[in-house]
């Protein structure tokens, strides 16, 4: 019922870039429909891949446009994309593409082992498209209400994706995910309404725009601080649930570990960003009306709790995918801590961290997914000597793991370095020392598991996993006929980025980040140590 009239109006109103916004939203929708119509596996795969590719291309075009003119909008003010949005849009499109690519091999294998039937496969690709759509909607929408609706929609679609398997654990996970996320989001809606109320009270005119973020920021100064405080708390708890901040994270390890691996990659790598993005939008408003201290404090507290709980759970983890899920919790925690620290370096680092995490985490998920297909188990205790059974995969897994654990020369080290520095600069020594300690724990936990999986001798573990009448012979035969070449390609792409971003940051990315930090009210010169950093 919302459909055509505003669309035409919007198209009429908006610039070519604005038009792009429309098309990028329509592409996955069309893809979904096509998959629905298509009756066979290959077609579905192809359609999804194509739509993902198109989305990626358009996203790049959009980013270019944003780089050119700082912000774009369509439907008047309904849709709006600035540098911050672009920074979140890019990973969505990119990871969407690689996981579409990965799905072909992974889901194909699941199909061969008839873990999923044709119908489910079709539903899968359909849902993937819609999932992509809903996620794209988040950074594109200027209207906070629409953003909320989109985020809620992501929940529902991803629940469908997790429900794809009919195992007990999958059902349990999706149930918990649905209930908890919905409750959380209802909190968020409370917050949204609060903000809306606060904004609409200060300006009597059209209530339509009172929900627009741009409008909210514009009036940030004059909002009722009392209400903004409560509103931010509700939003933080609500979207925090979706962003996997502890202690609201409880659904995350279940959902992320039970979903099909490509979906896990999307959930961990991108969806969490969307929720975090939402929080940060409100954070900006809160800064505007309450000043740095309040919201920053809350962010730091939640962040530290998240990192702590993640550290504990990673150290003792038995299940590979659960470990990765917890590490997502940890990284979201780091991001929110960084945002809490404030200052140019912090913001810059946090933004880099968002990008880096959403590159490295899917890599890990893909690698672990393929490994567990090969070994027939997710239990890390039964996986040994990957470096011998699948050398390339082993190396990729190591790259991913060391990146995630924050070792140079990989990308996450860069952002973590900046964040820690900014922590020192911001003078919150207690917080920073706790964080460093916890990071060491996380590192220890990761090494403990990954090194043992990658190295060591594979024989008995393979025997274990093929114990039902299977021998090592059989295992190797299985290895032969199940080639994972196609699965390697997306991993290689991601690994390449992991390494490259570890050495150097593209100028465009830099510009985006600087612009965003300006949105946060941090000019690159205001950050400590900017002018006299380099050697002259």
């Amino acid at each position: 019922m919302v459909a055509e009239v505003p669309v035409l109006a919007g198209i009429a109103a908006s610039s070519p870039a604005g038009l792009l916004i429309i098309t990028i939203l329509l592409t996955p929708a069309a893809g979904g429909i096509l998959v629905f119509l298509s009756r066979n596996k290959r077609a579905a795969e192809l359609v999804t891949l194509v739509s993902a590719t198109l989305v990626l291309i358009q996203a790049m075009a959009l980013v270019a446009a944003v780089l050119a003119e700082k912000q774009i909008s369509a439907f008047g003010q309904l849709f709006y994309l600035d540098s911050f949005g672009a920074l979140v849009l890019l990973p969505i499109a990119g990871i969407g593409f690689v996981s579409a690519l990965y799905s072909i091999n992974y889901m194909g294998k699941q199909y061969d082992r008839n873990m999923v039937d044709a119908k489910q496969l079709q539903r899968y690709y359909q849902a993937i498209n819609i999932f992509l759509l809903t996620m794209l909607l988040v950074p594109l929408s200027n209207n906070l209400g629409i953003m909320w609706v989109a985020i809620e929609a992501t929940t529902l679609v991803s629940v469908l994706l997790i429900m794809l398997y009919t195992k007990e654990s999958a059902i349990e996970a999706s149930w918990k995910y649905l209930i908890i996320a919905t409750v959380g989001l209802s909190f968020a809606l409370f917050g949204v309404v609060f903000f809306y109320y606060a904004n609409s009270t200060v300006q009597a005119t059209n209530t339509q725009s009172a929900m627009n973020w741009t409008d909210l920021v514009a009036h940030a100064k004059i909002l009722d601080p009392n209400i903004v405080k409560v509103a931010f708390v509700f939003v933080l708890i609500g979207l925090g649930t979706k962003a996997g901040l502890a202690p609201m994270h409880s659904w995350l390890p279940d959902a992320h570990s039970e979903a099909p691996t490509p979906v896990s990659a999307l959930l961990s790598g991108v969806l969490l960003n969307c929720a975090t993005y939402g929080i940060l939008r409100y954070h900006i408003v809160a800064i505007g009306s309450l000043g740095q201290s309040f919201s920053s404090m809350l962010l730091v507290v939640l962040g530290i709790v998240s990192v702590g709980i993640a550290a504990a759970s990673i150290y003792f983890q038995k299940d590979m995918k659960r470990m990765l899920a917890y590490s997502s919790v940890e990284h979201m925690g780091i991001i929110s801590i960084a945002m809490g620290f404030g200052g140019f370096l912090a913001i810059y680092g946090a933004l880099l961290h968002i990008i880096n995490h959403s590159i490295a985490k899917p890599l890990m998920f893909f690698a672990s997914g393929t490994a567990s297909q090969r070994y027939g188990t997710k239990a890390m205790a039964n996986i040994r000597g990957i470096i011998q059974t699948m050398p390339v995969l082993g190396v990729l897994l190591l790259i991913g793991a060391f990146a995630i654990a924050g070792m140079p020369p990989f990308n996450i080290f860069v952002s973590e370095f900046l964040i820690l520095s900014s922590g020192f600069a911001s003078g919150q020594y207690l917080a920073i020392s706790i964080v460093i300690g916890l990071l060491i724990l996380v590192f220890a936990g990761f090494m403990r598991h990954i090194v043992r999986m990658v190295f060591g001798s594979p024989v008995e573990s393979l025997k274990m996993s093929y114990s039902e009448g299977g021998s090592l012979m059989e295992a190797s035969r299985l290895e032969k006929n199940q080639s994972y070449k196609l699965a390697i390609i997306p991993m290689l792409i991601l690994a390449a980025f992991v390494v490259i971003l570890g050495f150097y940051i593209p100028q465009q990315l830099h510009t985006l980040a600087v612009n965003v930090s300006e949105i946060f009210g941090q000019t690159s010169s205001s950050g400590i140590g900017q002018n006299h950093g380099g050697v002259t």
Partner: protein
Amino acid sequence: MILLQIDLLTISAAALLIATFAVVVRRGFLDWLSGYRYQALVLAGVTAVIGYITGTWEIYVAAILTLAIKAVIIPKVLLRVTKGLSGQLSDFNPYVSVRSSIIISAILVILAYALVQEMFANSRLDSVARAYLPVALSLFFIGLFVMVSRRIALNQIIGLLIIENGLFLFTVSLTHGLPLLIEVGIFADILAGIIISGILLSRISQTFDSLDVGKIEQLRDD
């Protein structure tokens, strides 16, 4: 006229609270459902009244939607789902006994009132908001409490729905309705959510042949 308004407000508010308490007190699924339906009806009425008072057509639409979705469709969906369910639909040993549940709910209501006073200390509220905000909040809290304290999955869905109602009431009374587009979106989400949870419920009862969430705890770290 003003008096009438006030009376209407207070009465409907009371009615909403009563409906909620009904859900807290009763143990059978059908009782919950009827309680919820009753609540939804009142809510629709309230919305209409607010529409009448503020005279904005969007709220009437919202009222109609409420009536349609909350009072009619959702209960139907839930009933259809529960037809096929194995396992008992009633909650005989909740985590918190009914007696103490009532007390806690009462405390939550008081808390809600206090919180409203606290939050809107320095902002002028109209009579509608002043009447319904506390109720909305208490619906929210009680719904949450129900979800926390009950073992039967259905009951949690009901709790969720109560929360939604609280939200809706909150929105309507505080801001006289969100922009329609968003309102619609929210309704759509709720509907979809309920449908999906319905599917999930049936799967749960198939696989675990029980709706006791206490039995659904394979996924944990220890």
